[in-house]
């Protein structure tokens, strides 16, 4: 037997001969002959369950129809995907889902993004033959980030698997039996009562509107139409990377100028950039690292920009709180600065300022509501919307986004460096911090700004930087909370001698965040990553400490990094579970 036939098998699908790797399922093999078998519970990045029964096919010799998403290919197998029995059963299965689903597609938040709706349309379902009881379960709106509507749940368990496999959190599981079956947090508790990180990965895989971001778009419209308010907006690095996908662009396109133009048309008084605040974060965080290194502070220091990660630490690893950098996230720094520095400079009444942020993240909604984030004397950030909500708002206005002329951010909080831009990718915060920390520590100029060892989609990345002076800085980067847990274990077991660790809760970093456009998979994440580093490479400034707006801020108003004003406005504290927003 040759090595080729050992690893592949020959089968026929609808009479077409297919050679497929032995490890393939029928569903994967069907793709090789241009056949997209409809499916709902199957997700290419998650364990295969075979529970929705939409992808049923006929296999010669099998007792019943089989789920092609889980059924392995075999030598000589004869598969038929378009028989009367297959068509009839698939339709009945989807009809059964619809019979236990609210009939509110036209005004559902997932309208035109719903996989159930799409499959019902594709299968040509024109009526539902059954009427009867529907699942009655309360909507969970207990938290600022994620809404769970069990009535729209089709029990595909993608959320169960995403939460478990990506984050290791197991917030959701199946409960009850028969028609009473439901997917919910333990004991049916609200998401505010369990150790949910609000990362929103569940919302990115849910095929229906059973798990969605909390919609805050109306609050934004209300603020914009209030003549008494001065409304400013900040946009996170990853928003410009993903937004175009909502308008049919291929992933990896950057739409910064169009995004700014759209926001300005909405009527924002100022359109600013979170990238500016990311530079500010690097100034504080970088100097905090140096301070800890010089003064025997707690090491390794861990980043604190990702609110999903912060929730994870506060709920499940409070013992790691001393490791967290006290620097606020870019969103938090922006909020505290805009209602102090900016308003003072421009002569605006800070009490009239509404600070809106557009984020790739659902947990940022929760972060903005942290009681301690009011150092400006007001709520530092008033409203957070995700990339998806932002796209919906653009659609509401009728703005022809793809043909919008590009515009520039407003000064001064719209000026940023490439270091701020790469905050959106896993490893980006680390790389940005190294660019600044190295130069601040050594007094030398970096010859190569690209720390490629911390780039890419590997779950845990490690690298070392020779800082001279006998100090070799050991750093590690992890994305997803499952990988974060591994690093924590390593640190606690003293298996590694890290000085600095970057954690982002979502796969790929913020660009794969819980508020980003549907769908997101590894290929899409990779193209967003490439876009981010490409943008960085073309920036005028690539180090946070060289951003002139940052230099001006410190020189004219803030003082020194870690100085008194910075300490008051740009740093925060973290508290164990008890301190969590209730």
């Amino acid at each position: 037997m040759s090595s080729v036939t050992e690893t592949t098998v020959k089968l026929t699908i609808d009479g077409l001969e297919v050679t497929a790797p032995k490890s393939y399922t029928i569903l994967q093999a069907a793709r090789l002959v241009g056949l997209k078998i409809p499916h709902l519970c199957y997700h290419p990045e998650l364990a295969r369950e075979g529970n929705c029964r939409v992808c049923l096919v006929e296999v010669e010799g099998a007792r019943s129809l089989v789920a092609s998403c889980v059924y392995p290919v075999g030598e000589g197998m004869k598969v038929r995907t378009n028989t009367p029995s297959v068509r009839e059963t698939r339709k009945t299965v989807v009809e059964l889902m619809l019979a236990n689903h609210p009939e509110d597609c036209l005004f559902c938040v997932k309208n035109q993004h719903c996989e159930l709706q799409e499959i019902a349309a594709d299968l040509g379902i024109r009526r539902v033959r059954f009427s009867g009881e529907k699942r009655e379960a309360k909507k969970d709106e207990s938290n600022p980030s994620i809404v769970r509507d069990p009535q729209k749940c089709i029990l595909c368990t993608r959320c169960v698997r995403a939460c478990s496999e990506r984050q290791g959190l197991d917030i959701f599981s199946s409960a009850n039996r028969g028609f009473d079956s439901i997917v919910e947090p333990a004991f049916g508790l609200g998401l505010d009562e369990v150790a949910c990180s609000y990362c929103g990965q569940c919302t990115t895989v849910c095929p229906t509107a059973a798990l969605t971001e909390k919609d805050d778009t109306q609050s934004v419209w209300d603020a914009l139409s209030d003549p008494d308010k001065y409304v400013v907006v900040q946009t996170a690095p990853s928003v410009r990377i993903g937004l175009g996908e909502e308008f049919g662009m291929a992933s990896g396109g950057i739409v910064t100028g169009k995004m700014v133009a759209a926001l300005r048309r909405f009527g924002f008084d100022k359109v600013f950039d979170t990238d500016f605040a990311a530079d500010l974060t690097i100034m504080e965080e970088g100097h905090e690292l140096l301070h800890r290194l010089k003064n025997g502070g707690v090491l390794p220091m861990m980043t604190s920009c990702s609110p999903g990660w912060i929730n994870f630490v506060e709920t499940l690893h409070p013992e790691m709180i001393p490791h967290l950098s006290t620097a606020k996230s870019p969103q938090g720094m922006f909020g505290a600065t805009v209602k102090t520095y900016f308003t003072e400079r421009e002569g605006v009444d800070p009490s009239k300022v509404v600070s809106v942020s557009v984020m790739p993240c659902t947990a940022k909604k929760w972060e903005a509501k942290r009681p301690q984030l009011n150092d400006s004397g007001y709520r530092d950030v008033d409203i957070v919307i995700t990339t998806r909500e932002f796209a919906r708002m653009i659609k509401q206005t009728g703005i022809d986004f793809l043909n919008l002329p590009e515009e520039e951010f407003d000064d001064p909080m719209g000026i940023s460096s490439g270091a701020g831009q790469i905050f959106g990718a896993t490893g980006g915060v680390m790389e940005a911090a190294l660019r600044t920390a190295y130069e601040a520590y050594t007094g030398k100029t970096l010859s190569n700004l690209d720390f490629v060892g911390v780039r890419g989609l590997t779950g845990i990345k490690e690298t070392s930087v020779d800082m001279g002076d006998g100090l070799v800085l050991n750093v590690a980067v992890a994305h997803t909370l499952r990988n974060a847990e591994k690093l924590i274990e390593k640190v606690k077991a003293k298996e590694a001698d890290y000085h600095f660790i970057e954690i982002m809760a979502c796969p790929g970093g913020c660009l794969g965040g819980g508020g980003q456009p549907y769908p997101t998979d590894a290929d899409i994440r990779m193209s967003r990553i490439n876009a981010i580093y490409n943008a960085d490479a073309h920036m005028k400034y690539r180090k946070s400490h060289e951003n002139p707006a940052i230099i001006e801020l410190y020189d004219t108003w803030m003082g020194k990094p870690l100085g008194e004003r910075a300490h008051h406005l740009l740093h925060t504290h973290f508290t164990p579970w008890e301190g969590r927003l209730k």
Partner: protein
Amino acid sequence: MEKLARAHVLICGGTGCSSSGSKEIIPEMRGKLKAKGMEDEIKVVETGCHGLCELGPLVIVYPEGVFYIRVKASDVEEIVENHLIKGRVVDRLLYREPATHATVPDYDDIAFYKKQQRYALVNCGHINPESLEEYIGTDGYEGLAKALSMKPEEVIEEVKKSGLRGRGGGGFPTGTKWQFTRNAVGSKKYVICNADEGDPGAFMDRSVLEGDPHRVLEGMIICGYAVGADEGYIYCRAEYPLAIKRLRGAIGQALESGLLGENILGSGFNFMIHIKEGAGAFVCGEETALIASIEGRRGMPRPRPPFPANSGLWGKPSNINNVETFANVPSIMRDGGDYFASQGTETSKGTKVFALTGKINNTGLAEVPMGITMREIIYDIGGGIPNGKKFKAVQIGGPSGGCLPEQLLDLAVDYESLIRAGAMMGSGGLVVMDETTCMVDVARYFLNFTQDESCGKCTPCREGTKRMLEILNRICEGKGTEEDIPLLESMAQSIKAGSLCALGQTAPNPVLSTLNFFRHEYEAHIRDHKCPAGVCTAFVGYTITEGCRGCGLCKKVCPADAISGEVKAKHIIDPDKCIKCGACQSKCPFKAIEKG
């Protein structure tokens, strides 16, 4: 050395007889014998189940084999005084054949037992299940000793030769299954005994576990040796506390005697058995759900392949058989596969235990050779239908089985014939129904069970059985339409074809088989607004006839105040208020209330 007793008094300590009072009889019997100074002379043995639970508590006196039924503690004195001392059989406690009412003193002459062929149940009711010596005294562990002297492959060959097939429902050839696990790659393998008996009214496995626990252990150890496993799990429902207690006791005895644990019988073979108590989910009888449950996860099936033989418990090759299958193994090893294969039919060898319930005289357990007819089971063993009612159907195969009509009573029972008839062997539940049973209501009952017990994982089973149930409810409530029957049939096909595990794939069977054999009853509900059996209350009305003397009793018992009338004048029922409970009819001393 124990003294040989001149008589044995066997008192059934199975769950049925225990709940009907044998717990009081045993100390009473021991006390009375002691008072007479006969405790060394006559041995009292608490046994497992005899099968005729309907008539319990059962007491059997040997050497004569006299079979006493419905014995109470107050009867003990008479049995001691008359039978055990004077040798006079207590006539009034003897079993009577339902048809002739003649007393039958001898155990072996009772029709219920005469046509049975006890192979798996051979010791049940005859030995003290808590005694290893008694099990060994009936050639127990001889099969194991023989197996250990053979090569594992030869053991599997013997099981293959016997033709034994899975008794849990699937009917998969046991030897082939063992072969798969033996062939599977891996040094760590498991043997699992499925004792999650969940069919309503079925208690075959419970009786074996309670009445002859060592037989199951022996079967598992032989299997472990054959497939190359060193660890076994018995997954037993926690609702079987007596079975679990006796299993624990048996495991302890076997460990102490070198029949279990390290270096069994000096052969160098090691095998350990653990008990895992299940929390009572029907679906945990499905092998992959059962494995998930042992692993501490929610009991939900997963798609196969991989089959447990390749990836089972903790991902290791695992062989799962049910209790009755394992219980057959020791005798197959002892007697050789050929003897077992000489019993039964071409495709289904040996015997099968059935649990007889419903409208049948002898409710209980019966082990019969494969190929016996349904008529023999119901009429000869079961004693026919009580109260002179007419037979209507027999539901076989548990909640996912089918309902077979009178014209199939002469069907020779085996795996294939039942499937062909639209039913299945299942684990051996057999529910007899008479003319007062509504077949739509029966289908509804079983579907209600499977819907409740659906694990909720896959859409067709979770949602589909619910919709079918709603349609059946509508039909029973008089709201059925002509479209309902074809819709039920179409859904049944989709659910069978599309469900993930056997629970869903078989759940529509009761509906399909009743539609097949009793379609006219569905049509009567839908078209004529009648329930032919008079069960569905929507179609039932009570009227008072001219026979009424105006005594007022009916008015008094009516819980809905639906009856009015002056004393000594004919009363009337207000149909709008009547809740159709039938209380008036049963109270009327003049039989002047009619149901129709």
